[in-house]
């Protein structure tokens, strides 16, 4: 009965949210900054076992197959965006800018997270490595919600900068997803033992193969004339297969599904398939994302003051990484166009893929450290989501001239 109540509450929240969230256009900007989606994490926390206990641990256990499919869905949809024809049409250098920015942020957060985890826990080196890589992977991702608020204000002078920010935010989560794939390959190789790089590489290759094989299956099914309903069946089947297999092998469902989506986008010669799949996925996208937010909140255990301190350090290091990454990656572009030097301040938002990566860690790695990492990351995501609209506005308004 409790599970049923939890499902009712979850569904109702996601339904109401999918209509109301992210569209609070009539409210003042200051108020809107509190409604970028992070509020659903708080709601999830309140419904979770730390407070109201509506979504208890048993319910979360029952919902595991569902979470598995959601993560597969998120990864597949993200991979699908990397159609080579679309990527080739992007303004010059945007892919490289996004990749460099993401890698720099990852490189900035990884050693700090690793060091702090080494100093503060007695977990095995492999678990620490996985946790650190996951925190860094999540940090590399930029969410789009804050940018949406800035764009809604529609100041003409800020458009070139917001366009650049939008491109980076859309592309840099790829760095995070790949890093998450590496992180969980570490776990698949030796769950709780020493770090083994050859084995990690082997599991990473297996992840890529799994994504490619499931993509081949999907493409092989969808190349012949299929109705939208049949395509939905094939899509759901492929996502469940890819995501489920990844989890069964303790690999990253996000990464495997990302590879699958990427391969599907680039293997299909019938141009309309990608568009049709996107249409199907757009139907459930927002609903599933809100469910993920509430479920992440329910998984979240508050912890003590050290978690808050760790989250503040994480936010700080990530901010440094974003600013440095933004500066370094846009230097070439800045020779010809007016790019604000602190463009990284506009890339602070962390929801979306950054959150999915953290949920996946909690889902796959059955270790107390995963719980702590999740608490730190969610707290950081909330802080970042509160800061992001202000910083993104400042970045966009402070820039001038044309970029693209």
């Amino acid at each position: 009965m409790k599970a049923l109540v939890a499902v009712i509450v979850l569904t109702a929240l996601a339904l109401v949210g999918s209509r109301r969230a992210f569209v609070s256009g009539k409210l003042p900007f200051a108020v809107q900054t509190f409604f970028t989606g992070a509020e659903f994490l708080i709601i999830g926390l309140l419904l979770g076992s730390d407070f109201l206990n509506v979504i208890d641990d048993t319910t979360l256990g029952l919902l595991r197959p569902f979470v598995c499919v959601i993560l597969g869905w998120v990864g597949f949809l993200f991979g699908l965006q990397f159609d080579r024809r679309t990527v080739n049409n992007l303004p010059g250098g945007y892919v490289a800018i996004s990749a460099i920015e993401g890698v720099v942020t990852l490189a900035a957060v990884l050693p700090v997270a690793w060091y702090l985890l080494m100093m503060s826990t007695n977990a095995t080196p492999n678990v620490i490595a996985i946790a650190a890589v996951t925190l860094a992977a999540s940090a590399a991702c930029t969410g789009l919600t804050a940018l949406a608020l800035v764009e809604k204000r529609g100041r003409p002078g800020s458009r070139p900068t917001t366009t650049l920010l939008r491109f980076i935010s859309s592309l840099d989560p790829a760095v995070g997803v790949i890093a998450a794939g590496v992180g969980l390959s570490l776990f698949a190789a030796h769950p709780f033992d020493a770090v083994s790089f050859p084995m990690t590489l082997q599991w990473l290759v297996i992840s890529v193969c799994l994504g490619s094989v499931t993509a081949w299956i999907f493409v092989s099914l969808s190349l012949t004339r299929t109705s939208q309903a049949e395509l939905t069946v094939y899509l759901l089947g492929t996502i469940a297969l890819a995501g489920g297999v990844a989890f069964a092998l303790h690999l990253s469902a996000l990464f495997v599904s990302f590879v699958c989506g990427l391969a599907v986008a680039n293997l299909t010669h019938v141009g309309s398939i990608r568009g049709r799949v996107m249409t199907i996925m757009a139907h459930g996208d927002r609903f599933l994302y809100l469910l993920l937010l509430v479920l992440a909140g329910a998984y979240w255990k508050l912890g003590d003051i050290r978690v808050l301190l760790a989250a503040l350090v994480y936010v700080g290091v990530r901010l440094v990484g974003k600013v440095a990454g933004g500066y370094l990656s846009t230097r070439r572009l800045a020779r010809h166009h007016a790019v604000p030097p602190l463009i990284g301040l506009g890339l602070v938002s962390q929801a979306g893929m950054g959150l999915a990566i953290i949920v996946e860690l909690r889902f796959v790695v059955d270790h107390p450290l995963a719980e702590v990492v999740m608490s730190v990351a969610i707290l950081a995501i909330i802080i970042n989501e509160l800061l992001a609209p202000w910083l993104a506005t400042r970045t966009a308004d402070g820039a001038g001239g044309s970029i693209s």
Partner: protein
Amino acid sequence: MACDPDRRWGGGEHLVIRRLITLSAVGVLVWLLLRMIEISPSSAPAESTFMLGFALLSAALLGEIVEHLRLPRITGYILAGILFGPFAANLLSARVLEPLSALNDMAFAFIGLAAGAELKLATLKERWKSIVLLIVCTATVVMVGVGGFFFVTASWKSFLDDLPPLQILAVAGMVGVIAAARSPSSAIAIIDETKADGPFTETILGVSVAMDIVVICLFAVATAVAGLAFAPEQGLDLVFALEVTGAIGVSIALGVLLGVIMGLYLKRKGPQVSLVIVGLCFLVYRLSEIAGHYLEQNQGLEIHLEPLLICAAAGFTIQNWSHQGPRLLSAMDWVALPVYVVFFTMAGARLDLGALATSWGLALAIAGFRVVMIMLGTRLATSLAGDPEPFRRYCWLGFVTQAGLSLALISQIENRFPGWGNGLATTLVAVIAINQLIGPAAFKMALEKVGEAQRGSPPWKGTS
């Protein structure tokens, strides 16, 4: 890039070969993975998830393959369940199916909603005479005929050896009632697949849904009579019959209420209608179960609400009294195929082939006799109603399939009459397995023969 994909792959035979290759690849991938993965309690949800993916893909593939043999797709889904289920390859084992039972429950209620939404009052009013006659004639002929056949051949059944004739007659009464049951779920799936529309389609669907109610009521009476035959000292169990009738009334009332609420939601253009429908169907099934348990434990009442009936009443209300029928059907279209694939694949996996193997001869005889009785009953009804000739000739083909309700009634016999009840259940489950395999193909053929299946429409035109 704008070439015709079918032409590129060389048409029908090549498509089947290609599908078979893909199916083999999916099967090999899953087989290899199951050997690689050590299934522990923590990895069980992951196993269920990827097996769900496997079930969806393999069933959809088999559905396409059998379609080229002019069979309905749901036969392919059922075959996939049988092939990969516990009695053959055991990929969809009982352990895998258990966490997915929620999907099955939801699908059951969803199909009820779809069936109700397909029933248009205006057409039913036009066809009421045929519908009533079909219900009365086929129910009577099948019950009496199959029950009589069962009684006459009682000596063939070892599990009835110790029973006196009066008790065998009571058992035969229950068998007759179960034989009259249909499968609205299969009917609606075939109608959806063939995009069939017209008086024949509506009549078959209307009869199938209404017959469920009639069968439930008759089963309550038959069980009460059987109870009297087996324990005359306890007297006639009228309470049970009243409970069943009450459950039907409450189910319909709840369904109408649900229909009104859903109609308002649709009218106000609420978000994510497809997902709301799926969620509501899941809720209806689960809440019916919980209410049943509660009433049984706390009030001592065996009132089991019927989720299929609740949803069918809701769908009927929306279609006929809220003006939101088209919107409901369009929203259901988005999710209908995945729901059917899951439901019928799981139904196939749950088909007790063990029972069929042990009593196939007797089962075949009962199934065959049932078909003959359905032919007689429908011929009588359609003649009395003055239906046109194609209708008279092919009507019986729409009533062969049996599924969920029959199995539920059999399990009630098993629970109420342990001992011979188990033997009877084995035989009747085997009969249902046969009917479930041949029924969908028969109904599809009937729809094509009377010209109500839209075979000419291109496959991609369907749902969107």
